[in-house]
């Protein structure tokens, strides 16, 4: 038995999402989607779990607060300066530093997390990719057994695929 790759293109993200839902319901093959813009419909159809980037941002934010506390408390003890008779450790200005560092490190870890989780930069082009999938077409590439190819193709066509191409691997 050999595996084939079926490349289909859609003009509309709702149709593409529909095809994905049918494929998932039928439990055939493994698929990969290309979209010219992020589509909530397709995201829903894929049934992706919530991205772990949120935890990276939280981690970055908390480490920002800790860095802020270390800097403010550390420098205050290093250089004991009496400013206007206020207590040595005065919290109001520390809050500002901690807040800014929380935003900075949280933002940076969010940025890096997005790059990491979305696989940027992509060194190898994913199989089945077509230039049009970056312009105005949604691509759905299904990898399945040759015996099931007929069924998958008809499913894709029924969902409204404009083009369905079979390629052997």
């Amino acid at each position, binding site marked *: 038995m050999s595996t084939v790759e079926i490349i289909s293109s859609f003009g509309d993200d709702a149709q593409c999402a529909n095809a994905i839902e049918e494929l998932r319901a039928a439990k055939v093959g493994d698929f990969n989607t290309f979209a010219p813009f992020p589509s*909530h*419909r397709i995201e*829903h159809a894929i049934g992706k779990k919530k991205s772990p980037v949120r935890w990276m941002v939280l981690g970055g934010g908390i480490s920002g607060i800790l860095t802020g506390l270390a800097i403010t408390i550390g420098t205050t003890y290093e250089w004991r300066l009496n400013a206007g008779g*206020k207590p040595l450790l005065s919290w*109001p*200005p520390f*809050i*500002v530093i901690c807040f800014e560092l929380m935003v900075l490190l949280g933002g940076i870890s969010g940025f890096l997390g997005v790059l990491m989780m979305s696989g940027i930069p992509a060194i190898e082009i994913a199989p089945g990719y077509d230039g049009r999938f970056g312009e105005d077409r949604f691509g759905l590439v299904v990898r399945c057994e040759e015996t099931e190819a007929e069924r998958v193709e008809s499913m894709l066509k029924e969902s409204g695929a404009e083009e369905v191409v079979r390629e052997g691997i």
Partner: protein
Amino acid sequence: MQTIAVAMIVIGAIAFVIALMRGAAAIAWQAYLVNLLFFLGVAQGALAASAGFYLTQAKWGGSTPYRLGEAFAPFLWVGFFLFFGLFFGRAEIFPWVTHPIPQKAAWLNTPFLFARDGIGLGVMAAASFAFVRVSRADDARAWATATDDIELPPHSIRVFAPVVGVLFAVVYTLIAFDLVMSLAPVWRSTLFGWYFFAGAFWSGLSAMALTAVVLRGRLGAHNVFTNPIVMHDVGKMVFAFSVFWIYLVFAQYIVIWYGDLPVETFFIVQRAHHMPWSPLSVACVVLIWLIPFTVLMSVRAKKTPMILGTVAGLGLVGMWLERYVLVVPSLSLDAIPFGPTQFLISIGFLGAFLISAVPGLNRVAQAATSGEPVGDDAE
């Protein structure tokens, strides 16, 4: 509801008159001012939210959020007339009426204050009503419910919505300076006006959220508020502007703390470090920022009407308390004068607020059950 509201107004008015006759005028006028500021702020803040929705071209709830923001508008005229009632209590609430401050006499004098604030509130109410009128027109509703285009709102909306937004900032800064800051006439904080109307705006949003939750249960199975995506958006507004409020609190606090000038610090010291007021100040921060921020952070909490309604309701209590803590310590530093008189006067104001909201709420119910499409706002 109308009967109960009328009864509340009558009770409040009787309590007010009895207090004046008993010689407890100061207590009565304090409650009058606090409630005027709070309910006027809720009504105007919610209306400004409706104008803000147009400015950001919000279609996430169809036309219902607009009707919701405009529901309390009739109270603006009630508040406008009640404001002139302060003229008779001016000696009780404005310290500079009995002890004029020569350097500030050009600004803090009775005729000029009532003239400028009266004109401000009148223009604000008139502009708000003009805005409500164009907002309820058919073309505006058609725009809000058209989910598949990116057209701008109708021209008349594009004229009145920015006017309402700018007037809200200007007039409520003036109100904050004249009716709150002037009670401690030597104190000043440039940001105070902004802080005051941002709080009013948030109380408007909370009142809208609470109304949405209450109507959700009363309007049958298929109203807009049963849509979790719409409730999520309502919750986001409450969450976001609660953070904005604490930002403005801190922005003023740190400048005053750093400068450490007695003429500036006393206002905060009296409220945050002086008994019996400090627990109330802490309660304000907890109710307006800490609870909304921590509870509404999660998507599920925003989508759960019971949680959102509770947070918004507590927030409204917190905002009333905040107005109380801003006003009363300037007049009665060592004791909290809250008692039956002030409670009943507050009930009277609540009754006036509710009865003036009835026609608007009927419109909300109509829009929410009309089955119109709402914006395609997937999570």
